[in-house]
């Protein structure tokens, strides 16, 4: 299968880089000056900002033919759950006829991806998947497989996550290792070498582990074969990979720092890009689904 070439990355994180929910409309309008952020939920705003930053102005130059085969793929663990709870809370507390119908579209998990498609006029398959903590990695894996199966030529692929306010106790503030990361990250990717690449996706694999955290025996050869020739392995913070992965891999797992719901793998990706290693694997474990996803990547090519 052909590698998925990742050209650019755009992101926004609340808290980490000083952003806040209140600042989202302003940031959004810097990326989409002609679009009103009114009635748009924070998840969609974050996704839009990150997608726009990944494109860095290239969107307006796309031909109609390019747009037709340009996909948007979004992963999110909780998707629109925050909007669902808010919308329903209004209906329960004040009556269903007080709910603003303009808020209803925010309750579908594909709101963020669909809006990116609408704002940027991208008419290729628009896909939203919700795969727990592995959502980001699975979205990229989907992009790699989808590009190879001919679903699209180019894509914006990424993840967006909004920490739910309905959690008890509330998710923040708290110690770093338990703090939720809220934000969005999108990658501009294609199967065609158009400009310099940040990195390339060359393989992807995911499976559910047994209740004790070990892989079912049938998967072991595939799992072991996956990291042949790999010189680096990263896992996102907060993952219990250390205790679950085969013995030979533990030494590669970095120390956990922050819990990345649905954006799992992003910190590992950033660490890989900053490293001098050529070939790596990012592994994300989702405890809720006892699922592990693995993405094999190589450093990108710089064009002279």
């Amino acid at each position, binding site marked *: 299968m052909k590698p998925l070439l990742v050209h650019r990355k755009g992101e926004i994180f609340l808290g980490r880089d000083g952003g806040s929910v209140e600042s989202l409309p302003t940031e959004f309008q810097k990326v989409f000056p002609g679009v009103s952020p009114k009635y748009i939920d924070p998840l969609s705003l974050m996704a839009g900002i990150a997608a726009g930053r990944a494109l860095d102005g290239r969107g307006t130059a796309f031909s109609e033919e390019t747009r037709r085969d340009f996909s948007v793929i979004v992963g999110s663990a909780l998707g629109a759950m925050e909007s669902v709870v808010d919308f329903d809370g209004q209906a329960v507390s004040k009556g269903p006829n007080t709910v603003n119908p303009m808020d209803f579209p925010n309750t579908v998990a594909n709101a963020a991806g669909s809006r990116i498609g609408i704002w940027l*006029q*991208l008419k290729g398959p628009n896909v939203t998947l919700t795969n727990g903590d592995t*959502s980001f990695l699975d979205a990229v894996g989907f992009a790699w497989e989808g590009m190879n199966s001919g679903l699209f030529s180019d894509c914006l692929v990424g993840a967006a996550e909004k920490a739910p306010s309905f959690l008890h106790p509330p998710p923040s503030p708290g110690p770093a290792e338990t703090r939720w990361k809220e934000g969005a990250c999108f990658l501009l990717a294609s199967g065609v070498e158009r400009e310099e690449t940040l990195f390339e996706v060359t393989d992807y694999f995911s499976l559910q582990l047994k209740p004790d955290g070990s*892989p079912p025996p049938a998967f072991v050869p595939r799992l072991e074969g996956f990291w042949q020739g790999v010189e680096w392995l990263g896992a996102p913070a907060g993952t219990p990979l250390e205790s679950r992965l085969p013995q030979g891999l533990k030494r590669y797992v970095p120390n956990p720092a922050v819990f990345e719901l649905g954006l799992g793998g992003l910190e590992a990706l950033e660490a890989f890009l900053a490293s001098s290693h050529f070939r790596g694997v990012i592994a994300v474990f989702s405890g809720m689904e006892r*699922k592990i996803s693995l993405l094999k990547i190589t450093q990108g090519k710089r064009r002279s």
Partner: protein
Amino acid sequence: MKRVAVTGLGVLCPLGDELETAWQSMLEGQVGTGPLQFLDPTPYRVKIGGEVRQRRRIESFEREYPGRYERASVFSILATQEALSKSNLTSADLEPLRVGCFLGTTMGEVQLAERLSELKVQNRLGEMNPDSLSRVQGSRIAFSVLDFLGLGGPTTVFCNACASGNYAIGWGFDQIRQGHLDVAVTGGVDVFSRVAFTGFNRLLSLTPDKCRPFSGNRKGLVVSEGVGVLLLEEWGRAKARGAPIFCEIGGYGLGMDAYHMTSPHPEGRGAFESIQRALSQARLDPPDVDFISAHGTGTPANDKTESMAIKRIFGADCRIPVNSIKSMIGHTMGAASAIEAVMTCLSLDRGLLLPTMNWEVPDEGCIADCVPNQSRPFQGEVALSNSFAFGGNTSCLVLMKEGGTRETAARSS
């Protein structure tokens, strides 16, 4: 590329908690929607909906596994069990490495989310079950299915609103077609949601009495619930074990209106694209198509733009029968496309078309033959199953009669 057979089917919907009951009821033109029991509809403008009222299988399961799964997961497990049974398979017959589970849903375990919203409103979040965060996520549904079966393959839950099921079926098809898997549990599920009922009420998209797809006096959709599961299997494997083959998947197409969050493109652009892509992937031409299972929500806008897309591809004088079973079971949201695909498989297999009930008045803008009010015999080989969604996400599946003669990409490779 491998060929992909549908060897198992499972359904729960307002017309039955298993396949044969649902099929027979639809064949007779029964309507399963009506006054709601799930919630008190008094404050709502529209007071009808669709609910799975036959509870024999659900209650039996919940007695055996009390509290272990949320409702959408229970629906999905039951439909998967039925699909496996129809396929003459047990989970022990499946090689874990070669089986995946791909399901679609609009809102996941939304009834749990609604319980959480009640706790939040009442300032009682402290009483929330600590397990709720994991149980409320859509991903939990596919995990629950494989966990229940004791399998460990890849899972993905697609959240593409009302077209979610088709996205999941298409992805399962791709995984087998490319040789990554031998078997895929695919489909869609959504349980009755106060959020959806409130939202569609507020958007004035609901009909107050009955769903009349393609009828000139149509007034809207009916919010409903259900699940549809299609067990997909690599053709050679299915043939080798003598599996029942309901039909073959010829291809699928995904599209995007890129127009509006809640309104379809006025010319059905995304619908047109997805149908064209599906035909192109299957390497079929429009004259090869014998039947279309429509998205057919019964809203003025959907039925008009879907008809426009169909006429653009098949000709203004298109006489292909196009039905909408939403007239009988309502709009089951993320399950709709999957249940429609299940019934289309049976239509091809059994040579019978299900009716579009409640059709009363012609609409010049709509398709000419919506199989009005009565089922009928059918000799076709190729069917399309359309499904469109909020956000403009569109999809189309190509389903082929087992033993048919039409040459397709998969059959010729």
